[in-house]
Every structure is written in C-alpha cells, then in structure tokens.
C-alpha cells in the first residue's frame, strides 16, 4: 500500500459539514457591524486558517503521514510571517 500507515476511513462527510458550517459562520460574522475592525479581521483569519487546517489534515491526508512530512510542510510558515511582518512594519512605523 503506497499511502502510508493503514487507518480507518477518514470522516470526510463530517469534515465537509464542518467546512460548510464554518463558511456560513464566516459570512455571518463578517457582517456584524458592531464589532471593531480588529476583532472582525482576527476572528475571520482564525476561522479561515482552521478550515485550511481541516482540508490539509483530512483531505490531504497529513494526519496519517510521517511526522517528518509535517515538518517539511511547516517550513514556509516562518518565511511567510517574516515577509509580511517586516514589510508591514515598513508602512506602520515610517
């Protein structure tokens, strides 16, 4: 078997429902005008990244892949933070 360790069938439909529910939640949350802009942005980003995490772990099978693959996949994350954080600083503290 070329797909890594054996495991029971992943909960695909449960994840699908979760993604659907989160999408609805996001759209609803985005239009709560009473919230300050920062809370809106942070909340939405958190929800989006959690959905992305679900897709990566369940649909892309990361959950059942060797730990070293997780490490490799995580590699660009510090680079993304560095690029965006440093250049944002450029604009906010002239």
């Amino acid at each position, binding site marked *: *078997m*070329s*797909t*890594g360790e054996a495991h029971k*069938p*992943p909960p*695909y*439909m449960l994840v*699908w429902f979760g*993604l*659907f529910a989160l*999408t609805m939640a*996001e*759209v609803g949350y*985005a*239009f709560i005008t009473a919230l300050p802009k920062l809370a*809106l*942005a942070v909340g*939405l*980003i958190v*929800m*989006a*990244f959690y*959905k*992305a995490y679900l*897709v*990566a772990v369940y*649909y*892309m*099978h990361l959950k059942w*892949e*060797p730990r*070293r*693959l997780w490490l*490799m*996949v995580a*590699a*660009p994350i510090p*680079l*993304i933070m560095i*690029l*965006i954080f440093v*250049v*944002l600083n450029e*604009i*906010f503290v002239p």
Partner: protein
Amino acid sequence: MTTQAMTAGRAPMPGMKVYNLKLGMWIFLLSEVMFFTGLIGSYVILRFAHPDHFAEPGVVLNVPLTAFNTFLLICSSVTMVKAYAAIEQDDQQGLKNWLLATIVIGAGFVGVQVYEYIALAAEGFVPMADAYHAVGRHMPHDGPVVGGQLYGSTFYTMTGFHGAHVSIGVLCLCFTYWRAAKGAYSADNLGGVEIMGLYWHFVDLVWIILFTIVYLI
C-alpha cells in the same frame, strides 16, 4: 536483468517515507504557498498602506455569489476525496464517476468566477488605473467612485491567478479521468490519483484563505 539483480535486493534509504511522486507534489505545493504569499502579502501590505483605495466587504464585490462559489469548490474537494477513496477500494467505476463530478463542479467554479468578472467589469470595476470607475453593487453606474485603482489591480491578480490554477487543475483532472478510463489506476497503483487530489485540495485551501481575506475583511 531482473529487478532483484539490478538493485541487489537492496532498498534506498527510507528518506521521507512517502513515495517520490507524493513527495515531489508536496514540495511543489510548498513553492505554490510562497507564490500566493507574494501576491496575497502584497495585497495586505498595499491595503495597509492605502486603505482609501479599498471598500468595505460587500460594497463592490458580490459576497453571496462568491460564498456559494466557495461552497462549490469545497464540494469538489469532497468529490475528489471520494474518487480517491473509491480507487483505494479498487472501485474503477466509482473513481471515474467521482472524478467526473469533480471536473464538472470545478468547471462550474471557474464559470461562476468568469461571470463575476464580467459583472464587475460592467459596473466599471477594472484593474487598469486609467479606466477605473468602481461604484459598488446596486449603485448608479455614474455615481461617486468607491475606492481606488489598487483595489482592482490586486483583486484581479489574486483571484485571476487562483482561477488559472483551478483551470489547470480541471485540465489535469480531465487527463486523470482519461487515464482512469484506460484502467491505469488500481488499489496498488493510485499515486497519480493521490497527487491529483493533493493539488486540487491545495487549490481549495488557497481559495478558503483568499475568499476570507479579499471578500470578507
């Protein structure tokens, strides 16, 4: 010479413990992460630098339509994963059916996006600086301009490149379907389907983040 003699019964070092095709696809996807980071990062930075160029969510862009489109793409990820589950069980017909469903839904996503582009352009929301005239939805076409030129530039570049990746994905899915129809895949030989799935889920993943950042914030 037999396989045994060629390799002298030896195996290479375990390495990443996943087969080459899968490792290669994951590595390629990491480069795609950096590509979209460059584009989305630029959007974030330009938005902080010139917030007056951009509009509140829903004013110019059609959020309900795109939310539906997001749901569509997520559904296509489900059909893709069902296709993979089918070939894991050696279900050739199931593989073909679910692949076809993924192709149809994926093409539908692209279609909706093309429609969205046409509608936006008709409202005057275009990427070019000199032709820019965004007025927002349900507003008079010759009304006051909402936002500035950066809005159109960044929007069309990000969503356009994502759309291009989806389109290429649909073409690759067609190729995978053609191979499946020829019986190229089986429970012991499903690498091609698996890496197709990885690419497709990745495209969905990028859209999940893109939709939130561009349409909802």
